[in-house]
């Protein structure tokens, strides 16, 4: 069996990580891969996107070929340490102990590591596991700072604790994360300064320090390019802002300015990373619909789940052509 692939989605808070994870998951399942989406947040957004109210610690079927699960860091820590204690009465006392809680809150890396270890169980189910493992696992990760901390943990642990089961797990994780054919970090951004800057810094750390593979960056909520350059010029030159057409012109100017600002940030990201971002358009509906997820999934899936190719420098001409039409006439 081919080794499972891991997509770790992260980005600044509120950029649409869950939407991206959901769209990728749906697309992967549509290709016939047994897919699992792992929710690490507690806000229930993922389940909401698929019309369920809550996910739990055991994978739950969302639709054919697509499961989802929610992992709760606190529960993992409690589970791990009660496992070590083996006496339910004692572990109950322990978990209620303020000292224990202070210790685990302060000991760096525990929750991050346990979370990754949990993933390993789904990705490499090991011998004697009857069910077939997943082929694609998508982590709807925490926001950037916390995600970086998490992705750093296995290496820190493998260096510091070379032996024992802990060290062994750390090395397995390290091998999984560092395998460019299997694992990619997916960075989601908005077309705004803060968000783009954070994406650039994160990608540099991920690729440079951690030698992880980072997928083409994703920029979410890009305003459409409704108007050609000539039309934009016409609209912006037209001084008639008090007549009956005024609201139309004001709205058009708003969109044009938003699009222009977005393009500036897209260009900044492209220049800084040498990779062409994948653009997802701003939606004009109350919330993300199934059809949007499908469309996003197609766009993302082709770029992120395409057969592994290490020479992933974008071909300048075709990329340019593509992004020019990316969010144009997409209804």
């Amino acid at each position, binding site marked *: 069996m081919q080794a499972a692939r891991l997509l770790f989605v992260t980005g600044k808070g509120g950029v649409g990580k869950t939407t991206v994870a959901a769209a990728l998951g749906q697309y992967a399942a549509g290709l016939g891969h047994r897919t699992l989406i792992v929710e690490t947040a507690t806000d229930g957004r993922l389940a909401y996107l698929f019309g369920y109210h809550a996910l739990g610690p055991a994978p739950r079927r969302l639709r054919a070929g697509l499961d989802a699960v929610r992992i709760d860091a606190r529960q993992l820590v409690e589970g791990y340490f009660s496992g070590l*204690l083996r006496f339910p009465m004692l572990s109950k006392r322990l978990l209620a102990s303020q000292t224990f809680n202070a*210790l685990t809150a302060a000991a760096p890396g525990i929750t991050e590591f346990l979370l990754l270890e949990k993933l390993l169980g789904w990705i490499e189910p090991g011998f004697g596991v009857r069910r077939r493992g997943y082929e694609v696992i998508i982590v709807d990760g925490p926001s950037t700072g916390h995600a970086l901390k998490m992705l750093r943990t296995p290496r820190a642990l493998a260096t510091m604790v070379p032996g024992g089961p802990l060290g062994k797990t750390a090395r397995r994780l390290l091998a999984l994360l560092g395998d460019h054919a299997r694992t990619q970090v997916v960075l989601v951004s908005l077309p705004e300064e803060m968000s783009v800057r954070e994406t650039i810094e994160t990608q540099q750390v991920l690729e440079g320090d951690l030698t992880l593979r980072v997928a083409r960056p994703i920029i979410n909520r890009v305003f459409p390019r409704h108007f050609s350059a000539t039309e934009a010029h016409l609209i912006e030159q037209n001084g008639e802002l008090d007549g009956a057409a005024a609201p139309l012109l004001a709205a058009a100017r*708003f969109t044009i300015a938003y699009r222009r600002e977005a393009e500036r940030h897209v260009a900044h990201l492209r220049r800084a990373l040498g990779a062409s971002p994948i653009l997802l358009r701003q939606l004009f509906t109350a919330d993300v619909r199934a059809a949007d997820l499908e469309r996003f999934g197609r766009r993302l899936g082709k770029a992120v789940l395409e057969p592994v190719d290490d020479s992933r420098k974008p071909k300048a001409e075709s990329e340019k052509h593509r992004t020019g039409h990316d969010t144009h006439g997409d209804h």
Partner: protein
Amino acid sequence: MATIESLFRKRLVICVGAGGVGKTTTAAALALAGALRRRRTAVITVDPARRLKDALGLDGLSMEPQSVAVDSVHFDALALDTKRTFDALIERFAPNPAVSARILANRLYQELSNELAGSAEYMAMEKLHELLHLHRYQVLVVDTPPSAHARDLLAAPNRVTNLLASRAVSLLQAPAALLSGAPSSVARVALFPLLKALQRWTGLHLLHDLADLAAGFEHMIEGFHTRAEEVSRLLRAPSTAFVLVTTPEPHTVETAISFHRELTDGGFPVAGIVANRVLAFPRLDEETVPTAAWDERLRSKLLRNYRELQELSQRDRRTLRKLQGETGAPLLAVVPAVTVAPTTLAGLERFARLLL
């Protein structure tokens, strides 16, 4: 009913909310507005956007107040440095320089002061406590680190003192203390693998470092506790106002609603909500749109563009109504979406005008 003007009669204005909603900009604009009302004002920002930082003259990301002049008025701006504030606190409470040096060199302390969830939040509170006691400012506007939950922000002072007061020294000498009430021989046997596991995490000699840290802190716990209580009282004082900043996206509004609930449950005075990046394109009678000026293709594009923005405007109206309904908090300001985030003083002035 609180208004945005009432904020300038408070001593402490704390902007809270999820990441990316415009807290930093709102805090800076409120400080500017305070200055324009001739109040001695300062803003504490956390990780401001590069260009806003430049505009504020905050390039050095300094904890020293820097003066930002706008027209004839000025306000002070400071950027928070969690680690340095923590260090300063240690130096203040340590009985002598040797103890503080020992703590500052402790590995666990270094992890803790940078990484412990909530320490940035705690230090924001700590810094403003210090500033308020200097009586240098009439209004202090605080931009808080992005938190998904109010409890991260507000539980922070207790989290630090909990750890320090957690019998860590006795724990090292008698691990059974962790399981108070259990027969100590059973507890020792049971706890052995646990303690080993805890040691292994991260390779820090966690317990040793902790005991070392706790020993260093022994004489300081009292001071920390008192300080945490003062900060906690300060946050609930009538002279304090929390401002909940949000954007109108449905999901962000849900976060804001639970944030508001946590704040009011905790007894923190929420003055109201600032809704940022709101679209307000009113309904349009398409019949009245003149056709002469444009060809059919452009006309239909213009209409389609308008309908899309109006769709979003409706969504914003709905979510904000829901926000008000569920929180019962006043909308202090509705700031329309602007295409370029303010990154210059002039931009900040424009933003402040929209806010007020």
